[in-house]
């Protein structure tokens, strides 16, 4: 909150300076439109990363608009409902793949950068942001620890379905989360999501040891 206040103060200070010298500053929507125009003129296609990636979907646009501010409850609910409705569950009803493959996917940080080979499978890079196992000490802290994810929550079908949904599209449960929508955005294949869910939910997985 402190940091958000500081940003708000800095913006306010900039505005005060602006008002003192000139006419009132542009509206938030005008600045956003200007930023979109500036970005369009500043990026170029490279490898698999084309400029169409700068075209935001509704979730991205709304979360950008409210970044650094309080997200109104109705807006959050709208984002979560739309993303929940978009979750694709496995056709065969099987949520759990192979946790060993899931661990490899969790370790791998490549995929979708212009420097990556699009022919190679992408990683989920879970360890960049989460603790998962006791063995891996090189983990990030942007997301919560997932150690004992299944053990703490239970291994029932409802939890498996929830874990699937969370990996597939985290915006369904937590509007404007930092977490990518791995299934929804096509970062991981359905098979890969199954393996990552096994890493979280298989009682034999090192996550639950």
């Amino acid at each position: 909150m402190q940091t958000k206040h500081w940003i708000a103060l800095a913006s306010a200070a900039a505005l005060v300076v602006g008002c003192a010298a000139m006419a009132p500053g542009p509206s938030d929507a005008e600045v956003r439109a200007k930023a979109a125009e500036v970005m369009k003129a500043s990026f170029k296609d490279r490898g698999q990363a084309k400029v169409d990636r700068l075209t935001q979907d509704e979730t991205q646009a709304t979360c950008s608009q409210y970044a650094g501010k309080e997200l109104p409850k109705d807006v959050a609910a709208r984002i979560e409902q739309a993303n929940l409705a978009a979750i694709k569950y496995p056709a065969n009803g099987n949520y759990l793949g192979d946790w060993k493959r899931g661990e490899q996917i969790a370790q791998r940080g490549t995929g979708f950068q212009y420097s990556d080979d699009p022919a190679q499978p992408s990683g989920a890079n879970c360890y960049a942001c989460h603790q998962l196992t006791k063995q891996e000490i090189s983990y990030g802290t942007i997301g919560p620890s997932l150690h004992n994810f299944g053990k703490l929550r239970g291994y029932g079908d409802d939890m498996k379905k929830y874990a699937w949904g969370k990996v597939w599209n985290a915006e369904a449960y937590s509007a404007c989360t930092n977490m990518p929508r791995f299934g929804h955005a096509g970062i991981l294949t359905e098979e890969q999501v199954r393996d990552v869910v096994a890493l979280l939910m298989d009682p034999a997985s090192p996550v639950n040891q």
Partner: protein
Amino acid sequence: MIGTFRAALAVAGIACAVPLVLAQSAADEIEKYRRALQDGNPAELWEARGEEMWKARAGPKNASLERCDLGKGPGVVKGAYAELPRYFADADRVMDLESRLVWCRVALQGMTEADAKRNPFGSPERKADMEALVAYVTGESRGVKMNVSLDHPKMREAYAVGEKIFFFRGGPHDFACATCHGEDGKRIRLQDLPNLTSKAGAQKGYTTWPAYRVSQGELRTFQWRLNDCFRQQRFPELEFTSPASVALTTFLAYNANGAAFDAPAIKR
């Protein structure tokens, strides 16, 4: 100097090779490694090469850059970087250091803009003139307090646009700059992340670029830092000295105001 690097790398290597060591003690070891690196910074080599280049006649006009106006008058290098980006009336736009160096190479030395922008990020096989020039100019602001002014309306616009870009979420991963740099005390794997939305975080982050990157054996500029962040954000490529890059730099540099500039630094 090289010996110190090797010893430090060995220390870090031992920390990584012991699987049961706790993350915190690993982080402590990395911090020790970072401190050990400060003993000798190869960025000095870039600074020296940049100074020679600044003074050497070059280009179709066979002129040096010594009359280049970085904002404090023609030829004034001392302290200039601490006031950049700024609005330049002759170009009628906001420029960061790299944009201004391109401008001077065109205006004073007669180079084409395309030539002045070629190879902005070097490799061991192909050193970049731009990285050397930036190393020299930024080194001349070491210890000077950051003092970027938003008095000009175009600076205020650049700041506001830069702030929006900082929070802009896009691409397959929905990432923004703020995803990784919006909260205190976060890290990716074991890499600490500055919170660039806080005064202290912006000051620490901004004032330690450019930096010699040990892992790459190159001196990297702030333009490179932004370019490579967007690569990892899964965005298309940020063009060198593009308006978005200058706006974002304006946002971050202004937020760092008041802190003593402390680069070229050295980073892992």
